[in-house]
């Protein structure tokens, strides 16, 4: 069987053609077109012209407003990532101690957000987060707040909702690393004289770091490129890179500028991913060889 597959007679190309065509046509080509578009000249009357210019990039890189957008997006993504680690790590450890029946149930609960359409989920959150929403009603009736807390159209709201969506990615990443940790290692540390906390800090946590870091990369990049949640929860008030791109394309109709911001976002994310991967590879080469 295997021999037939590896020998090949051209049919393997034929069979992978639909997938390749889709990949090429729907990912590579639009990306390339966007990149080309970002070097075009924009004319307020005639739209984008095919003359070559660095102008769009110069516009973005010389305007403090865009720096603020990028920094805010990075800050938000970092915030979501940190919260996901803080919530996801104990949750995963807790999950691993459960009986398998409960594990299954809780996995469904945790993966739940991914099963629901982004629009439905986000609108659901806006019902919870509104001035007259469930969260504010509870806060006021418990006398934890005097007046309704503004959550909709704030960064706090965006971070809460994004965290809800991103947490499953973090948990899955940590979970898969946790499965590789030898259960006896904790026993070994205890019998050598380490208490439960020291055992966790010095023996278990370092072995989970690769999972935490790869989960963080996933959460960070997805948060930085998230559009629907910031647009629906943040609205006009929370300006991020993705919403700015949207505005350039659809409101200002300045496609080249939008494309330039999009390319810069892509480069920024790629830089973070590659950088973190390097770090993980160098730092944890030994651990799971």
């Amino acid at each position, binding site marked *: 069987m295997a021999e037939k597959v590896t020998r090949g007679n051209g049919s393997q190309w034929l069979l992978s053609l639909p997938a390749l065509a889709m990949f090429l046509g729907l990912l590579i080509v639009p990306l390339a077109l966007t990149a080309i578009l970002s070097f075009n000249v924009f004319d307020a009357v005639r739209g984008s012209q095919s003359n070559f210019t660095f102008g769009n990039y110069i516009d973005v890189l010389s305007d403090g407003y865009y720096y603020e957008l990028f920094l805010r997006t990075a800050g938000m993504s970092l915030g979501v990532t940190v919260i996901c680690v803080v919530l996801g790590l104990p949750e995963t450890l807790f999950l691993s101690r459960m009986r398998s029946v409960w594990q299954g149930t809780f996995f469904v609960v945790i993966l739940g957000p991914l099963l629901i359409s982004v629009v439905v989920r986000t609108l659901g959150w806006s019902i919870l987060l509104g001035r007259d929403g469930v969260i504010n009603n509870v806060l006021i009736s418990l006398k934890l707040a005097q007046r309704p807390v503004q959550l909709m159209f704030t960064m706090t709201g965006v971070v809460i909702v994004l965290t809800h969506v991103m947490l499953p990615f973090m948990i899955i990443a940590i979970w898969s690393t946790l499965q590789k940790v*030898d259960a*006896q*290692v904790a*026993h*070994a*540390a*205890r*019998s*050598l*004289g*380490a*208490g439960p906390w*020291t055992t966790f800090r*010095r*023996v278990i946590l*370092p*072995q989970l770091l690769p999972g935490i870091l790869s989960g963080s990369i996933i959460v960070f990049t997805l948060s930085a490129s998230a559009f629907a949640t910031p647009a629906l929860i943040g609205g006009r008030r929370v300006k991020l890179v993705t919403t700015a791109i949207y505005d350039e394309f659809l409101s200002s109709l300045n496609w080249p500028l939008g494309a330039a911001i999009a390319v810069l976002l892509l480069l920024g994310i790629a830089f973070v991913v590659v950088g973190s991967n390097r770090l993980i590879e160098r730092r*944890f080469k*030994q*651990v*799971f*060889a």
Partner: protein
Amino acid sequence: MSKLSIHGLSKTYSDGFQAVRKVDLEVQAGEFLSLLGSSGCGKTTTLQMVAGFIPPTTGAVVLDGRDITHAAPEKRDMGVVFQSYALFPHMTVAQNVRFGLEMRKMKRPQVDDRMAESLSMVRLSGLENRYPSELSGGQRQRVAIARVLAIRPRVLLLDEPMSNLDAKLRGEMHVELRALQRRLGITTVLVTHDQAEAMMMSDRIAVMANGGIAELGTPQNIYDHPTSEFALKFLGQANVITGEIASMQDEIAAVRIGSASVTAKVAGGQIGRQTKLFVRPERLRLTPADNCNVKGTVLTRLFLGGLWFYEIETELGKLRSTAANFGTAQPNEGEAVGISWSDGDLQFVASEVGNG
């Protein structure tokens, strides 16, 4: 040197499964004791209760007169070598060995001395900066041993430490670990399913079955004079001869098997009762057919290097026999031979214990 006592130790799991039933054991200071049994006999559970990893349902663990039944594992001063070695994969050999010393808040120069001493004991000096993933299985095991020896534990607990090594390395480690244990005088409990390993290394062996101790004694004592059929069969090969007691004189019974008859000491034997007698293959000697206990024909002859293995058809049934290879000519398959044994080689053991 520390003395470890286990009193009436039991473990019943929430589903009602009784893994360990009322185990009593005294491990003398400096003694090497093995818990020997097949999987599921409760030996590992016993070890884990001693180490403090699982709480016992009833009973007590006492170390040097102090009741440590409910003490946390880190307060017991025991060194455990695990089957998987359980090295810390993110730490170098040196960091692994230093871990227990740092937990004891030892000063840096002392830590360095102890680490160097432990690594040289297991002949690993020079590998301090390697990670576990860069070591062979045998080296990993040595790190695991060095790591526990460094803390000078009061009791050394070995949980099937040899089962991941190949046969040759295992043989070397048996000798080396035993020598190390004697030299340091550490009270040691070994859990194993390998009866050869248990006999080779131990001062005493506790054979476990169904969560209890079926047999306890020195290796030679329990091999030569087991009190149960289970222990007898678990510790080595045995021929079984089944017959009927024809006559009794004092405790010596004449047992009739077909037309043949053998004599053996049968405690509490009654005439007419069916009786099983056991004899180890190495106790059966091949002799000329005219002067022997029973005559037979060689069915199978196998050459094992150091030993010859025979299967012989006799009136007592098929008997297996082994003989040391002295390089001399041996009877071939199909030849008539005689089989001889000494008084006391045919053994009667009371009743079956365990899952025999």
